[in-house]
């Protein structure tokens, strides 16, 4: 059964918008603005003979003079005393723990000559399991951020001497403690045993000190519900690998919810159709189309404000199935297509093997979720509260209390550690409150919104400069070791606390002392000694040095895991029923505030890689926007490029760019948090330095109710804005022209025939080309190839960032992306298709625009089919075609084929005709319009000496006027081959991993040698699901895609 689903990337493509069609014709739609440039300075294009001679003469002279330039003398400066473990030119890898958010993924840091250049997930870590998200990847650039504070500051002025600052602060703290005045350390979630010990030491020294935890995006609802139901305020460990049925209510667990890398790794283990094994089923109920929603087998749009009621209905439906007691709600809800009833049936059948979660921040809603999981006996099986998570511990009501007390003058000293409430909480009140404190200190690395208002800023180290440990889950320990010495005059936050408390440890004896060891000095942070001391008791008997060093080397250490047991349930579901009903009132438009997958909570708002990465669903870069359902957009008269004014509670924002989001539930709108920074820096926006903010800050729209900040704002008012604004959206930059690029089928069909959806007869192609040597059997060389499983790929975009870092891909910024000049070597194409099984539509799919108009009319303005879309993500990179169309059109042989199957790009030869880009059917070639690495117009990181530290020295930094594209990470291939040659052995399978494959949290990308018949990639090439994109062109690509299989009833 070959499917005939019509896929489309955006509405403009679907309805064949004339302006879209006009630009679509050309590969490079923007002509060079020569007229504009030349007319500006009095130049004219219609010059005469004399002018020509003048310019000609000048050019010849200039060239002649330039040729007289003397070759510069280059220096080579070796080490004075070479560290034993460093060989210039060879990378070292160190275990550490990612500090970009509080999840605590174990990572491996690649260090070249003392400078970290890449971070990847550590396979030893039970959190990251070898994968890493986009934010974790991009975290390395925060280390080389020129906006970081070079010195501590007092009242905005730099102080280079820490001792002076320390004496002032500790004196102030002491006088407060003596006077019985309160001191609050307001931190984000800290689960490091040593750091927590430092806080205890601080509290011991200053008896009036308290430690309050506050997360920008908190999980207060879950913490409170678990406290109420099980007497334990903690987030449980969710086991997605053990769940056969996953039901999520608005929890974006593959993108942003709690521990997305871990969850993606677990989730995908059951998502690959394997003979003799069932595939897990995933049902998503949500308002905005989240990354997780796009991967669901069945997705039901619901109104966010009524999520509690839907859950209560599900509770009752499950109770009915399992014979439990229903909860008293006035009315049971149902979604179109009887989703609740169907889900309840499936849940009841999958007792103990299912998982129900909700992204709600409402305690009552989470209590209902607990109740359902309790009925289904999931505790101890798919939910483990015994070995709970420590990744988020912040409670919103605590932060609210601190704010109130600080405003009332009841708190004298406030210390901000990893928190920025002026930006991500009630900013105006916090600004005022901080002024009332006698002592305000921030540990921020940059002069962020909160640090601007603090008296002292004592900048913390970046995590790559720090010692540390972490306990992301009970009994799971990770370690942090520095991979570079401090870039600036900074100090680790816990060390600052210890210094003020006068609780510094003794410096360890120098093990090199008196050994005459070529001047090696033992020069480590005092915090190292402190941390080692913490671990003294925990590692048991034996040589501490040896054990501790092993921990640092591995980066992980586990205590014996306790057996997961079902906790005692103390909840009373009837009690919360009224709260749920009360919470679901209101029929107006609901505003859903969500985290975007790239920028997340906004803490890394100055990181250009994250802004440049297209949003996995909307493909918008460099902005947040209001996601409107089609019905609402039509009602407001808003189209693409228009703006919307928003009034949400006390917050009014005007001219928010609008985006019509297929899949957005009617009567709801969504806006991402994490944007609108005013003191992030030159990339993210800074009032002080006069850089524009990116997008709008929606944090002030959140209000605390029932002990937690609500991420759904009810009854918002919307009007059409006066301005227009173009979003830099990459979705239709490379049109599919209606071609058959993705294939999908259902699990039931796959079970009958493994090539379901992929049974297109092979077209016989005649070719004038001789078969390449390496394609023949029994050839000695490698044949590199890749396989991408569309079933595993979630579309998260981590590969995009990883590729940019590995291959020195420049950031080009919003203006260039608007001109379709993004440089990413790998992109993720996202295709929509209608999925409405509603009765109005004849057949399941609307395939033509004419039919769509008919359906629009039959919907009576509800546009319900727009709510029901399904999505396929397809990573697209150079396909390394064996008969590559780009190669045959290059006039200078700059792109050629290697005997190992690689399509090579030689920058030295390229003269920039762009013929190859025009002739590439996959649209994966990128042209360098500017010298991004040395151009202040692109003021991101590439143009300053500190930002350049992140450049991979094994890959050329391309200059203006050349084409570039994915190379299959040829530098890694060469490195892997060379290692094998040096050791006199064949390259082992899996030894060479491309950057995208290495970071993929879903294991969707496999790379290897096809000449090795037992390699992973060879096996996937033999898989019946395999298909090559545009196979009919006979370009013989080297990337095999595997058909997407959904565990649902019909395609």
């Amino acid at each position, binding site marked *: 059964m070959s499917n005939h689903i019509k896929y489309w990337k955006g509405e403009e493509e679907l309805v064949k918008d004339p302006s879209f069609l006009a630009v679509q014709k050309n590969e490079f739609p923007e002509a060079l603005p020569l007229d504009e440039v030349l007319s500006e300075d009095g130049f004219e294009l219609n010059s005469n003979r004399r002018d020509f001679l003048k310019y000609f003469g000048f050019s010849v002279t200039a060239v002649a003079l330039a*040729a007289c330039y003397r*070759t510069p*003398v*280059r*220096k*080579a*400066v*070796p*080490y*004075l*005393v*070479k560290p034993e473990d460093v*060989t*210039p*030119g*060879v990378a070292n890898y160190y275990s550490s723990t990612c500090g970009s958010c509080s999840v605590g993924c174990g990572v491996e840091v690649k260090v070249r000559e003392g400078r970290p250049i890449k971070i990847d997930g550590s396979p030893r870590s039970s959190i990251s399991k070898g994968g890493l998200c986009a934010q974790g990847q991009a975290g390395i650039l925060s280390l080389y951020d020129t906006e970081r504070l070079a010195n501590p500051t007092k009242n905005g002025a730099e102080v280079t001497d820490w001792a002076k600052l320390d004496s002032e602060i500790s004196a102030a703290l002491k006088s407060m403690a003596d006077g019985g005045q309160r001191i609050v350390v307001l931190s984000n979630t800290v689960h490091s045993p040593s750091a927590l010990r430092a806080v205890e030491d601080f509290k011991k020294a200053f008896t009036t000190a308290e430690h309050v935890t506050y997360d920008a995006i908190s999980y207060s609802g879950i913490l409170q519900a678990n406290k109420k139901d099980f007497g334990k305020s903690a987030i449980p460990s969710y086991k997605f690998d053990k769940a056969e049925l996953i039901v999520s209510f608005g929890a974006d667990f593959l993108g942003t919810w709690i521990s997305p890398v871990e969850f993606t790794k677990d989730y995908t283990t059951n998502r690959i159709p394997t003979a003799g094994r069932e595939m897990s089923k995933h049902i998503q109920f949500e308002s905005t189309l989240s990354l997780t929603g796009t991967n669901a087998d069945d997705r039901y749009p619901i109104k966010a404000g009524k999520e509690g009621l839907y859950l209560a209905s599900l509770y009752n439906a499950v109770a009915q199935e399992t014979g439990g007691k229903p909860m008293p709600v006035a009315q049971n809800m149902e979604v179109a297509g009887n989703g609740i009833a169907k889900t309840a049936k499936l849940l009841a059948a999958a007792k103990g093997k299912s998982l129900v979660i909700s992204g709600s921040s409402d305690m009552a809603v989470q209590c209902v979720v607990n109740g359902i999981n309790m009925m289904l006996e999931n505790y101890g099986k798919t939910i483990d509260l015994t070995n709970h998570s420590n990744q988020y511990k912040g409670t919103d009501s605590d932060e609210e209390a601190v704010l109130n007390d600080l405003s009332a003058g009841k708190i004298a000293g406030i210390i901000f550690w990893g928190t920025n409430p002026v930006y991500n909480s009630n900013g105006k009140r916090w600004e005022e409150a901080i002024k009332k404190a006698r002592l305000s200190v921030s540990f921020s690395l940059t002069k962020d919104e909160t640090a601007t208002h603090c008296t002292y800023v004592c900048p913390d180290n970046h995590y790559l400069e720090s010692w540390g440990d972490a306990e992301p889950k009970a009994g799971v320990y990770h370690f942090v070791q520095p991979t570079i010495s401090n870039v600036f005059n900074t100090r680790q936050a816990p060390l600052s606390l210890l210094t003020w408390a006068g609780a510094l440890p003794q410096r360890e004896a120098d093990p*090199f*002392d*008196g*050994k*005459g*060891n*070529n*001047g*090696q000095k033992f020069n480590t942070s005092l915090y190292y000694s402190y941390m080692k001391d913490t671990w003294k008791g925990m590692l048991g008997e034996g040589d501490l040095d040896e054990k501790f060093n092993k921990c640092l080397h591995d980066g992980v250490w586990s205590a014996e895991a306790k057996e997961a047991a079902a906790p005692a349930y103390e909840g009373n579901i009837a009690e919360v029923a009224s709260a749920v009903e009360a919470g679901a009132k209101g029929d107006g438009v609901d505003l859903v505030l969500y985290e975007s997958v790239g920028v997340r909570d906004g803490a890394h708002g100055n990181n250009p890689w994250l802004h440049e990465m297209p949003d996995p669903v909307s493909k918008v870069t460099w902005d947040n926007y209001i996601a409107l359902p089609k019905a609402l957009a039509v009602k407001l008269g808003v189209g693409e490029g228009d703006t919307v004014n928003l009034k949400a509670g006390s917050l009014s924002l005007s001219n928010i760019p609008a985006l019509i989001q297929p899949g957005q539930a009617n009567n709801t709108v969504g806006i991402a948090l994490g944007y609108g920074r005013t003191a992030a820096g030159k990339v993210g926006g800074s009032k002080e330095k006069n850089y524009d903010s990116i997008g709008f800050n929606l944090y002030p729209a959140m209000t605390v109710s029932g002990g937690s900040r609500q991420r759904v704002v009810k009854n918002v008012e919307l009007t059409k804005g006066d301005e227009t604004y173009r979003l830099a959206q990459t979705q239709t930059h490379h049109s599919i022209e209606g071609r058959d690029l993705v294939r999908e089928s259902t699990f039931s069909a796959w079970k009958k025939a493994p090539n379901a959806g992929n049974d297109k007869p092979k077209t016989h192609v005649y070719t004038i080309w001789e078969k390449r040597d390496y394609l023949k059997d*029994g*050839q*000695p*060389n490698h044949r590199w190839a890749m396989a991408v499983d569309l079933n595993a790929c979630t579309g998260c975009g981590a590969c995009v960032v990883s590729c940019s870092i590995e291959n020195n891909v420049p950031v080009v910024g919003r203006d260039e992306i608007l001109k379709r000049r993004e440089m990413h070597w790998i992109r993720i194409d996202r295709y929509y298709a209608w999925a409405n099984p509603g009765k109005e539509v004849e057949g399941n799919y609307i395939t033509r625009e004419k039919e769509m108009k008919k359906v629009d009319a039959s919907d009576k303005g509800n546009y319900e089919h727009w709510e029901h879309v399904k999505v396929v993500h397809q990573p697209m990179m150079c396909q390394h075609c064996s008969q590559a169309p780009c190669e045959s059109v290059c006039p200078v042989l700059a792109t*050629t084929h*290697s*005997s*190992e199957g*690689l399509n*090579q*790009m*030689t*920058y*030295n*030869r390229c003269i920039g005709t762009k013929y190859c880009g025009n002739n590439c059917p996959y649209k994966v070639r990128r042209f360098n319009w500017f010298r991004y690495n040395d151009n202040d117009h692109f003021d991101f990181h590439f143009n300053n000496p500190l930002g350049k530290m992140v450049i991979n020295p*094994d*890959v*050329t930094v391309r200059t203006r006027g050349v084409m570039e594209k994915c*190379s299959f990470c*040829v*530098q890694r291939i*060469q490195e892997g*081959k*060379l290692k*094998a*040659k*040096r050791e*006199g*052995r*064949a*390259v082992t399978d899996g030894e060479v991993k491309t950057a995208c494959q290495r970071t993929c949290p879903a294991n969707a990308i496999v790379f290897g040698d096809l*000449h090795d018949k037992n390699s992973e990639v060879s096996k996937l090439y033999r898989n019946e699901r395999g298909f090559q994109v545009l196979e009919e062109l006979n370009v013989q690509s080297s990337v095999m895609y595997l058909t997407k299989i959904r565990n649902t009833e019909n395609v």
Partner: protein
Amino acid sequence: MYKIFYLLLTCFYICSAKNSLHSSMIRHFKPLVFSAILAITLSLGAETKGNADEGKKIYEANNCGSCHNLDKKVVGPALRGVGKRRDIAWLTKWIRNNQALIKSGDADANALLKEYGGAQMSTFENITPAQVVDLVAYLDLPKPPPTGGAKKPGVPEPPKSDNTLYILLALIGIFLVLLLILNKVKNTLRKLNAEAAGEELASSNKNWLQRLLPARLANMNQVVLALFSFAIVVILGGGYLYSFGITEVGVQKGYAPKQPIAYSHKLHAGDLKIDCKYCHIGVEESKSATIPSANICMNCHKGIQKRQDDESGVDISPEIQKIYTALDYHPEKSGAEQFGSNGKPIQWIRIHNLPDHAYFNHSQHVKVGKLQCQTCHGPIEKMEVVQQWSTLQMGWCIECHRNTGIDVANNNYYLALHEKASKDMKENKSRSKYFGPDGKVKVTVALNGGLECSKCHY
């Protein structure tokens, strides 16, 4: 004017060459004097039992000099006259296994250990007790009297620049001028002659060009002639510029800048035969061979502070002193304190600069390809001052890749390639690319994809 200048230059060159000849004669002569003195002293000290000549060999073979100096305390104590200070039995024990001696609680041994900050000496059980006697005999030789140097050895000769071209040019210039003068003289004479004969000159109505050129060319249309000449100039000039551009621009073959330290590869790699890999540690594992860090120099130069034949009277050679300064090293101190904290890295001048966008890996060529350093770097062991030996142009790389064979039989990485080649040979496929005309397997680098772009450009 130039003539005179070039003549002067030539004279100066010959003189300077003579000078250097003179000095090198002295240098060759000096060791003779030295050994003569040595021989005399040896015969004087005949009553010591050991053979000092043998002792010297043992001293050098065991690299004692890397930690000891005869007359000065360095890492270890000054050794001259040690046989007079210590008992020979004790010395034998100490040299062969000092650690055992220390453990046995020997007071002298422990005092020595303490004096040198706990820095332990290596054990030398390979030295027999009889050899110890020889060694001590060598150490007990009296210090030879300083002779005072006329010229400091160790200062490298300035590299000879090739002046032949200039001399030739100068000669051509002189001859041209002579030719013109003679021509003028000839013309004047002819004129005078004609005047005297009362003849009218035939060529008086021709302009200079017509007079100069042969008749056939001179009668041509002048525009055509001009264009024709212009074309010749353009072709010749263009050809010259092209070859200049290809072979000269950016090609720094022969580049031999003066380095901050006058380090001699001739002395270290040539005379002393130190393995290249001892200092260039990265060459088998990294893309860069690496310029040695100063602490590698110190492995030997803690002990060796000047050339053996240095008779200038200084304690530390000024060039070695530069390493000490860079490391902030003070020979008089001991133990870990020797390297100070005010070190200043040595800024060597990079000689081998690859063209942009090219990737080169030493380990691929040295460890895998088993190439000698000299293949690309030339006779480095004969260079007083290192110079760029090869052009480092792409054509140079390619040529080698075309001709060099891979040792496919002895590296399992090439197993498949080797099997294929052997199979081809067995089946006697006359057209197989894998074996040469001699009928033996020959897989060149090029055959294995060594000419492909992305092997070096990415």
